[in-house]
């Protein structure tokens, strides 16, 4: 297996390589710490594989260019961090409503505003779900290692193409800048999903015709002879604007059902030592690494601690968290924010067990010792 050499890679580099392996051939971006290495890498790598890179005039424009390129038939991605993510939201909402597949990477840094540009944070969790205005579906994934930065980026593209929607790949400054030994999979072993092109001739094609119960419409590219209309206004299945209440409800319902009907396909997580766990740590991204170490420290002392690590942040693994809350005595949620995901976990736990946060939003990571101390404190 000569092509499975071990490499020393940075999280941002692995994300880019995963994207290219998934078929990404268009990247539009704008410089921002700590995601810039993804744009730099894309500018170098894409022309080598027949792809296109462009540095746009701003974050809004780069999100717009990504959507345009996707409509023109290329798998497309952009990468940013907090201040840029806030600007992407306008066209992220557009991509949700118009069902244009694309991937948006947010390497999180301290906020709000310009915040702490070179420090890690996990404070854009709720933004990833609710940032764009209006009711809309959301998928957000979060790797916890360099290796996963590669594989989860591939998954992000697959979900974007399969469900025709923007997918947010959350990372944090630690995952983005960390270097680790990785063994990348052989590209031939990867499962790659491409959007479904039109199965009917142009005269029969309706761009938003799909099963109202969460169906995904077919998507030919601009230039392939289908001459359809795309608008950010509420539209009927023919793609043209409507203000009809029933048609509006059908569209929004279908968009939400794309997620709700496919939770098992979309939700990925890792369980570690949950069977006998009295205390369950729920952690994601780089904080899950500290949680894993804290769990090992606790287990060494005979404390029954388990770890639940969501890889899919949105949609939320509600059933799984309910199950955990029904069995565990306590749930501890360490996160580099002031308790964003904890709100969601408390909602699912619904009082069945105590949910305790460990929170930092000061640019410092949560260490294994911080978590271990909390475990001992709640015993």
């Amino acid at each position, binding site marked *: 297996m000569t092509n499975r050499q071990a490499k020393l890679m940075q999280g941002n580099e692995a994300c880019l390589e995963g994207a290219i392996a998934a078929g990404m051939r268009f990247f539009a971006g704008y410089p921002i710490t700590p995601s810039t290495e993804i744009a730099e890498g894309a500018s170098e790598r894409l*022309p080598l594989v027949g792809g296109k890179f462009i540095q*746009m*005039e701003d974050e809004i424009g780069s999100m717009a260019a990504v959507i345009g390129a996707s*409509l*023109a038939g290329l798998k497309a991605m952009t990468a940013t961090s907090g201040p840029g993510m806030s600007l992407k939201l306008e066209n992220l909402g557009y991509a949700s409503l118009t069902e244009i597949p694309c991937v948006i990477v947010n390497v999180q840094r301290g906020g709000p505003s310009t915040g702490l540009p070179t420090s890690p944070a996990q404070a854009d969790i709720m933004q990833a779900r609710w940032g764009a205005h209006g009711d809309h579906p959301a998928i957000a994934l979060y790797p916890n290692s360099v290796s996963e930065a590669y594989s989860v980026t591939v998954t992000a593209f697959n979900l974007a193409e399969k469900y025709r929607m923007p997918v947010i790949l959350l990372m944090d400054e630690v995952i983005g800048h960390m270097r680790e030994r990785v063994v990348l999979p052989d590209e031939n072993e990867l499962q790659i999903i491409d959007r479904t092109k039109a199965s009917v001739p142009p005269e029969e094609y309706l761009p938003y015709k799909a099963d109202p119960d969460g169906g995904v419409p077919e998507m030919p590219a*601009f230039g392939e002879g289908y001459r359809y209309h795309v608008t950010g206004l509420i539209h009927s299945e023919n793609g043209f604007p409507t203000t009809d209440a029933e048609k509006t409800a059908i569209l929004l319902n279908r968009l939400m059902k794309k997620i709700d009907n496919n939770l098992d396909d979309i939700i990925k997580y890792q369980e570690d030592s949950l069977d006998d766990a009295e205390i369950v740590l729920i952690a994601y991204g780089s904080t899950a690494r500290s949680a894993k170490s804290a769990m090992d420290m606790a287990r060494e002392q005979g404390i029954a601690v388990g770890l639940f690590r969501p890889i899919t942040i949105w949609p939320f693994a509600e059933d799984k968290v309910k199950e955990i809350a029904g069995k565990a005595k306590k749930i501890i949620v360490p996160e580099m924010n002031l308790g964003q995901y904890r709100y969601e976990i408390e909602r699912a736990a619904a009082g069945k067990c105590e949910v305790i946060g460990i929170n930092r939003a000061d640019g410092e990571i949560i260490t294994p010792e911080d978590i271990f101390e909390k475990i001992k404190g709640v015993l």
Partner: protein
Amino acid sequence: MTSNLVKSYFRMDKLPHIWCPGCGHGIVTRAVIKAIDELELDKDKVCIVSGIGCSSRAPGYLDFNTLHTTHGRALAFATGIKHANPDLEVIVITGDGDCSAIGGNHLIHAARRNIGITAVAFNNNIYGMTGGQYSPTTPTGDKGTTAPYGNIDKGFDICKLAQAAGASYTARGTVYHAQLLTRLIKNGILNKGFSIIDAVSVCPTYYGRKNKKGDAVKMMEWLKDHAVNVAAAAKLPEEKLAGKFLIGELYHNPQPEYTEEYKKITESLRRG
């Protein structure tokens, strides 16, 4: 009687359009399709991209690949399309507010890149869709619903702005000079790089009424009386040009086009 031109290029089932009686936007839209028709462009390869506003509803009526985007962002979406597939003929329909206020950054950078997009600015000096607020092209002193005592802002000259930013073709037409407008759009499409055509339109409903400009016919007459062709203007003394504005091809200076330059990089890498 609907003309064959309209039948050939409009989505007839999407008519009637939403524009007010007397609005000039239908004339500009016709000039766009007339230019496309005369150039015999392949409908399947034409993408019409718009932002938000009265102008930006035009693509919905037209039988091409059409994209109605977010406010001000049409040129950025169009840049993605053109860069992804340079074989597509990308035409942007925008308004004065859409392209020179909220979308001003995208305008100057599309011009700077000289990317092969033709933008037609339906310029009616007002935000019509929202009911008549002053825009970056509302003349100083004129009124809007947000300038009840007269606008103290100075207006943009969209062509000068685009030229300064690097556009390789700029032109101005009006809805009175419809044939000229068609020619200018045609030449804009033929120019390989970034082209912008400032299409001076009329909004009798909001701008006209608020500023006592009379009905649509009066406003068209005003365009006729105040527009001076750039060739004629060159021979006129300055005092004769006071209060007038220039129409015609204002600037044409072919420059390397963005996607062709990118292709050169890709090909040089392939040759190793």
